[in-house]
């Protein structure tokens, strides 16, 4: 009977979360449409709203391929943030960890010419290291990870730029392109590119690799770790109550660092997926903005209410509307409309707990009314009285 109750109530809560997310999306889209109307009413529907809604399908299959190529790293940064959330930490440092991951992947690909999976591992490790630092500061100095992560985002950016650029002489730096070497332009790097198994052909793109499947697989793995293992139990316990975890014999310092390291590793892995799919190259001259992938990860995690499986879908959605936004005609609309929409959605997500409550109340009003101080079930009582004496 209890089992049934569990599956029932957890199903209810997932339905509620999904509905809440959909509601956020709906409101975001409506506001987006209003903005389109305000800017240029004549084209708001066909040239504006429909393009955003259609996303990659506006230019299928190419657009869809692009959407997937972008979704893969987004799933990972989303997972990075979501994983940290689940363990009680706010990883706003995914951008920095992603930066380091990019460096790791590109260094192994360009300098060491290693196979793609090795490069991916390198990206994961470097991202993990960069994530571990704020974890360390949190564990040993009790400094809020948010502030540390923010600082290490910038430190990471400057560091990686310096390492790659080296005043224009860096061996990974392609002076002609002002980017790192283009992996697909040189047969030397072929083994470092993630295989695509015909996906590029299918989508008529150059960078749709199996990255999306790798990312989805990792998401499932993270879900299992968090929900089914003792390791996940420990991590969550530390996140929810450090002192109690310590009391329970869990090494809370180690676990905080581990949590952040894993979160960082996930972000680093995402960078690996992105750069090793050769979606883009690193531009070390850019010293004023962090990779947006890192911050969009926060959006993804929020939209998924930190459910690892949910990040797969929310990442694809975010990627969908931003590809849609990029198909907006500059003649009528700024492409930033899609950023605006996702910004609004995330803002709404920030208090989606409220929606969730309302939706839950609406849907399951009669299903699970509970009384906190309920008397225990009848048969339990005599047994305890006997026990007491």
């Amino acid at each position, binding site marked *: 009977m209890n089992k049934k109750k569990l599956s029932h109530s957890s199903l209810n809560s997932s339905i509620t979360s999904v509905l809440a997310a959909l509601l956020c999306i709906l409101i975001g889209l409506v506001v987006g449409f209003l*903005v389109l109307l305000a*800017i240029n009413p004549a084209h708001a529907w066909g040239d504006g709203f429909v393009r955003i809604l259609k996303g990659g399908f506006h230019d299928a299959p190419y657009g869809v391929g692009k959407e997937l190529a972008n979704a893969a790293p987004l799933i990972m940064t989303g997972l990075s943030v979501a994983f940290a959330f689940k363990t009680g930490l*706010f990883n*706003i440092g995914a951008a920095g960890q992603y930066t380091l991951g990019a460096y790791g992947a590109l260094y192994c690909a360009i300098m060491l010419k290693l196979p793609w999976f090795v490069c991916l591992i390198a990206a994961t490790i470097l991202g993990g290291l960069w994530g571990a630092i704020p974890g360390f*500061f949190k564990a040993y*100095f*009790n*400094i809020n990870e*948010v*502030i*540390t992560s*923010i*600082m*290490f985002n*910038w*430190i990471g950016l*400057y*560091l990686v*730029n*310096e390492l790659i*650029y080296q*005043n224009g002489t860096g061996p990974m730096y392609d002076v002609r392109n002002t980017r790192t070497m283009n992996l697909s332009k040189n047969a030397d790097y072929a083994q470092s590119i993630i295989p695509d198994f015909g996906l590029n052909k299918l989508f008529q793109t150059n960078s749709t690799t199996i990255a999306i499947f790798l990312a989805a697989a990792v998401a499932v793995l993270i879900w299992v770790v968090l929900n089914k293992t003792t390791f996940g139990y420990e991590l969550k316990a530390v996140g929810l109550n450090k002192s109690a975890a310590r009391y329970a014999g869990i090494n809370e310092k180690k676990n905080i660092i581990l949590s952040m390291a894993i979160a960082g590793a996930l972000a680093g892995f995402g960078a690996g997926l992105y750069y090793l799919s050769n979606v883009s190259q690193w531009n070390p001259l850019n*010293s*004023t*903005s*962090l990779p947006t992938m890192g*911050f969009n990860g*926060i*959006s993804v995690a*929020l939209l998924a209410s930190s459910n690892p499986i949910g990040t797969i879908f929310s990442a694809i959605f975010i990627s969908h509307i931003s590809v849609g936004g990029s198909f907006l005609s*500059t003649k009528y609309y*700024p492409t*930033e*409309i899609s*950023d*605006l929409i*996702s*910004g*609004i959605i*995330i*803002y709404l*997500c*920030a*208090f989606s*707990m*409220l929606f969730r409550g309302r939706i839950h109340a609406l849907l399951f009003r009669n299903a699970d009314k509970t009384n906190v101080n309920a008397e225990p079930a009848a048969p339990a009582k005599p047994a305890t009285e006997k026990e007491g004496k």
Partner: protein
Amino acid sequence: MLLLIKYTLLYGIVLMLVALGGMFSEHSGIINIALEGIMVIGGVAGVLTLTMLPAGMPVFLVVLISVLVAALAGMVYSLLLAFASINLKADQTIGGTALNLLATAIAVVIAKYFSDSGSAKLNYTNKPFLFSIGGLELSIFVPLGIILLIISYVVLYKTRFGLRLRACGEHPQAADSVGINVYKMRYAGVVISGALGAIGGMAYIVPPVQTWNFEVGVAGAGFLAMAVMIFGQWKPFNIFGAAMFFAVFKSLANIADSTFLAQLHWSSNIYNMMPFVASMIILAFTSKNSMAPKAEGIPYDKGSR
């Protein structure tokens, strides 16, 4: 040297203003991570106002109106944070992060809408904001900032409002139990931070150039200001000191090649990194007795005990 002072002041005042904003918000119990976004909003509002004011207007009025509009915009924008985190009890860091993402998008959309060419670039004049004393050119934001600093100190420590505000950030239940409206005080804290943050955003953009591309945002200055606030231990004058400390690094990074530091041949990446590294080190040393308001980040629920 004069130049170093000038740019240290210029940049330091920006950081200080924004950090003071953050301080008010945190003393009321709300972590305002949206400062970066508020700066952008303040910047775009102030700059737009500048472009729209008629040419012949007296300098004094130009400054007054544009700064007020910026502050107002920041206050309105910060209401979004206040609403989410006070009324709806949303997670403050998450709400703030969302507002940061949103701010740049809003600023770009607005700037593109208003600029003639459809780019996110706005042209304006900064003349009304500059004046010089004996060869040292300063922006109006320097005296304004100093005044706001002193006012901040007085308000925080010498007035009834300040006492109540701090009580709300330290122990909202206690404040509530003596009849202080915690929600109202928190709104006040956040809105003040909106105003200061927005003025800071304008101070960041306007004095040094007369064209701004809003796609750039404010390049992390808001986040740095948060570091300044922590480094300054949530106290006005300490924040001033911390801001100047950061600003010296920043200015050195830029004018290093005009000073003896040019010999070191450090790249600007290294200079840029330094304030962050320095504040990490200092944070590590001062972490043991942090003065952070105790209730910051925790939504206040009248019902909970």
